[in-house]
């Protein structure tokens, strides 16, 4: 009995001493938090959805207070929250160019050649484990097992005919799909941009021909036809410079593989 009491007493006193010392130390080493950060955190929707691309509302609030992030990234809060955050930061509530996600791959069912018949778990990352490639012969192709669909909080991603497609009216441009894609092909493009090549393959034309019935072969026809010089073939893949693109849609018309997506068509 005596031993038990003594043991309790010793540990209790030790714990008390350490607690008191730590409490004193926490006063000395107190870190001031930017009051703006706390105010911004209050104004946010607080859903911790990650739609802004930061780890939770706290992470976003810290980035805004430091001036590293724009005020309008809280997707759950919308325009109202953006205005309030802008007021706290004393910045103009500039909307900025709205970005939407785009999956540059046209290798849907029957178009892209299969490497093997994948029957494993519905997960792109799992499909990648087979030699770091995937179920399709083209190493750049969308795997189509929907990691981006599951990452999307806004019902803007769907698997259509074996590849991911973006519903542009639902997309808020949070970039969750961009981060999750194990092939790193999903990208954000300005909503105003009219055309974008629907292919990510940097393979040479001959290789693309073998593995995919769509696929950019780098024929440079779009580059020659573009009146503004906005579309350039680089590493055997057409690329659009949104700053130069005048949105005439000519490249989409002349593409022999019909893979340049015209968003106004």
């Amino acid at each position, binding site marked *: 009995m005596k031993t038990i009491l003594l*043991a309790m007493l*010793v540990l209790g006193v030790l714990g008390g001493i350490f607690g008191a010392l730590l409490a004193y130390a926490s006063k000395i080493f107190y870190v001031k938090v930017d009051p703006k950060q706390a105010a911004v955190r209050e104004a946010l929707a607080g859903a911790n959805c990650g739609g802004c691309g930061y780890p939770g509302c706290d992470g976003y609030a810290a980035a805004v207070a430091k001036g590293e992030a724009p005020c309008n990234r809280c997707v759950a809060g919308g325009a109202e929250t953006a205005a309030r955050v802008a007021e706290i930061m004393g910045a103009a509530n500039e909307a900025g160019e709205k970005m939407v996600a785009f999956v540059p791959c046209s290798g849907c069912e029957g178009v892209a050649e299969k490497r093997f018949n994948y029957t494993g778990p519905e997960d792109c990352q799992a499909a990648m484990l087979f030699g770091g490639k995937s179920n399709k012969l083209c190493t750049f192709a969308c795997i189509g097992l929907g990691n981006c669909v599951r990452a999307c909080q806004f019902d803007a991603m769907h698997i259509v005919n074996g590849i991911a497609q973006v519903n542009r009216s639902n997309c808020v441009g949070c970039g969750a799909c961009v981060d999750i894609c194990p092939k790193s092909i999903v990208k954000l493009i300005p909503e105003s941009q009219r055309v974008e090549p629907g292919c990510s393959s940097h393979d040479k034309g001959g290789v693309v021909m073998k593995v995919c019935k769509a696929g950019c072969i780098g024929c440079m026809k779009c580059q020659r036809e573009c009146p503004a010089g906005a579309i350039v073939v680089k590493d055997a893949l057409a690329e659009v410079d949104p700053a130069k693109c005048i949105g005439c849609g000519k490249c989409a018309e002349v593409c022999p593989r019909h893979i340049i997506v015209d968003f106004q068509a």
Partner: protein
Amino acid sequence: MLSSIITISLGAILINNFIFSQFLGCCPFLGCSNKVDTALGMGLAVVFVMGLASAICWVINEYILVALHLEFLQTLAFILVIAALVQFVEMFLKKMVPSLYSALGIFLPLITTNCAVLGVVLLNVQNNYNFIESLVYGITGGIGFLLAIVLFASVRERVEFAEYPECFRGFSICLVSAALVALAFMGFSGMAIPV
């Protein structure tokens, strides 16, 4: 006295290195060795905690636990000391070196459960070290950890750019290189220092 200190130091740093031959503290060793800078910070924090924990735990063990015949409380009391120390280190880093604080992230509070720290204080008791010897064993054990984690982080930084089979990507190649570094340290095993 001096010769025993040298024996303990060399033993803790090279021959019986905490990570490579006693396999203590493997969690932060693998988790915090992405970059040499982070590894250095983690190693220094562990040196600090191990040295201080050895000193404080020796005093508590000798003058409270042994004096009151409460030796069975050793593990519990030592964990208490280590937890308090880690809290202190965390506060200190948050105030003084915020960049290191955010780089270490969750691994900083995890020093509490780093078995190398608890291991060193329990080994002090087991080996009947006196105060000076305990302190030296704690600090040099920490230096051994620092040496191991910095060496391994440098290896990993180079492995990043190496060409190896794709199926080894990520943690597999990390474990393979850890094994090879440990193998190199086997060269010290069985070495005896004449007293």
